[in-house]
């Protein structure tokens, strides 16, 4: 049995906005085990980013309210002081971002940026040795001529190269978990494939666990071991990749998978979509959040918040159709 690295229990994220409190993440449970890749998928605004940022408490300080437990090796990160959190960020749990164009400081050379992050966590390492580590890291993420690129400024690099630098930056201190917030969304498709291959390669090399946010099902199929499907701030289905793609249980997941355009689909056939829009999370919800858009909705769906059912081993789905009272 693999070691459990991160255990999230009943995590809530609330934002104070001018129109009231926005309940972005409404109680999610999940775990990350050593060396696995977990994907979080869902449409825009379903709370993916808010949930993942909450793991290392990166949400805006004054307007965010966190509740629940984020257990990292048995300690609740939500109770950590800001100074303790700094020791976790980058060294234990690291993160890469969506837009490599803006995630690097334009006034620092890429080498110094990686060096800086490294020196932060290993202040006693001599500079020459730290520099070698950085060069090794740049080589590992596939930057050609790392010696010369060490002194390059971010604006002289392409988007794909910058994302590689970001990955080097995030992995320089050998974190146990890498949070990747849509790392390929801003890149074009060929570069996407390269970056995903790089992530897979890095994981094989270092054994880092990866939590990957995306709204691209093909990315999930490509790299993940396990998938969490989020909708309106909740995890509505979780399963291994094979199971999820072959036997999706929740109506939302089923519709999401059906919406993937196929190459062999006739041209005149319209693309499938899920009608309607996700609920506004400023209002409190009654019943199942997907109910208004669901084709299989039942009367009970409007009244009862669906609990999570274990459909099979390691396959959870939060839909009332799995309830024993349901006769279908």
């Amino acid at each position, binding site marked *: 049995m693999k070691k459990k690295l991160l255990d999230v229990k009943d995590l809530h994220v609330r934002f104070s906005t001018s129109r009231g409190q926005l309940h972005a993440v409404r109680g999610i449970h999940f775990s990350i085990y050593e060396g696995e890749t977990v994907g979080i998928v869902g449409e825009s605004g379903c709370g993916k980013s808010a949930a993942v940022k909450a793991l290392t408490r990166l949400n805006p300080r004054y307007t965010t309210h966190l509740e629940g437990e984020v257990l990292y090796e048995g300690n609740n990160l939500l109770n950590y002081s800001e100074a303790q959190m700094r020791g976790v960020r980058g060294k234990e749990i690291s993160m890469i971002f969506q837009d490599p164009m803006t995630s690097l400081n334009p*006034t620092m050379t890429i080498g110094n940026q990686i060096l800086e992050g490294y020196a932060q966590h290993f202040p006693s390492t001599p500079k020459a040795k730290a520099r070698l580590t950085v060069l090794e890291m740049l080589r590992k993420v596939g930057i050609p001529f790392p010696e010369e690129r060490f002194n390059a400024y971010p604006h002289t690099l392409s988007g794909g190269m910058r994302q590689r630098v970001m990955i080097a930056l995030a992995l320089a201190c050998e974190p146990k978990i890498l*949070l990747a917030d849509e790392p390929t969304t801003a890149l074009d498709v060929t570069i996407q494939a390269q970056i995903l291959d790089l992530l897979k390669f890095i994981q094989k090399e270092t054994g880092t666990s990866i939590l990957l946010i995306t709204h691209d099902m093909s990315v999930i199929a490509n790299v993940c071991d396990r998938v969490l499907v989020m909708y309106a701030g909740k995890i509505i289905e979780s399963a291994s990749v094979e199971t999820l793609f072959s036997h999706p249980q929740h109506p939302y997941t089923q519709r999401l998978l059906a919406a993937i355009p196929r190459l062999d689909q006739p041209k005149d056939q319209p693309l499938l979509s899920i009608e309607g829009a996700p609920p506004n999370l400023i209002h409190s919800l009654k019943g199942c959040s997907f109910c208004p858009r669901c084709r299989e909705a039942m009367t009970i769906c409007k009244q009862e918040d669906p609990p999570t059912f274990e459909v099979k081993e390691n396959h959870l789905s939060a839909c009332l159709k799995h309830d024993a009272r349901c006769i279908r």
Partner: protein
Amino acid sequence: MTKNNFLFEPIEKEQAQNQEETSYSSVTYWQDVWHKLKQNKLALICLIILSILFAMAIIGPFISGYTYYQTQLSLKNTPPNATFWFGTDELGRDLFTRCWWGARISFFVGIAASTIDLIIGVLFGAIAALAGGKTEEWMMRFADILYAIPYLLVVILLMVVIGSGIFTIILALTITGWINMARIVRSQVLQIKQQDFITAATALGASKKRILLQHLIPNAMGAILVTLTLTIPSAIFAEAFLSFLGLGVQAPIASLGTMANDGLAALRYYPWRLFFPAVLISLTMLSFNALGDGLRDVLDPRLKT
């Protein structure tokens, strides 16, 4: 037909790889700024004028062989000639020496005051913006209150309490002078701290101090520099203005302002006594302002193409 056949042979693998090896040199930000500033002729000329003025402020007082306090009553109010290049004043002191001595005082006051403004303003503004929330609110309201006190009143009060002199002037200029810098830096930092690389730095474990010094301030450097080049001339002018009102440095030390004040009374008969200090003040002010303007064109990211 067979002549050029070798051209159509498949390329060697090694050669193909070599093509990837492009020559690679990185231009730093400041090299880029310098390159663009050179295109701006006016700013460049102003930079040269400033360098000359600056050099003369250092070596000028020693050229003529007279000191700024040496009086020769028999030679009072001599018009400019071969011995006294700028003429003499009503006590027969060499105006050339006195002018450059005055320029030295003016530069010293200007640079000292704006350096203090720079340090206090940048740290205050950046810390306020980074802290956010209540802290920011209190810090900025404190700055507003200071800003509301009439500046001349502060100066005169200080003169009364600690007496006039160079350091009183510097203190008087900095007591309220840093607020402008603090406001500009705050507004810049508020923008920069929203950017992804700040979140990224936080996500990788950077401390607030490091974010402030390594990420926020370097990125606000453009605005800081432009403000600085506009603060120096306003400090120089404020010094000249205060000295002109008689609130500045005391005789026999000269500053450009006191000399202009002395010269004003004798404008009818000995116009050179006002002319030379006034020209130096104007040249300094003009050069700094034009240079600041040129720098703004180069450094403002919104004007970048």
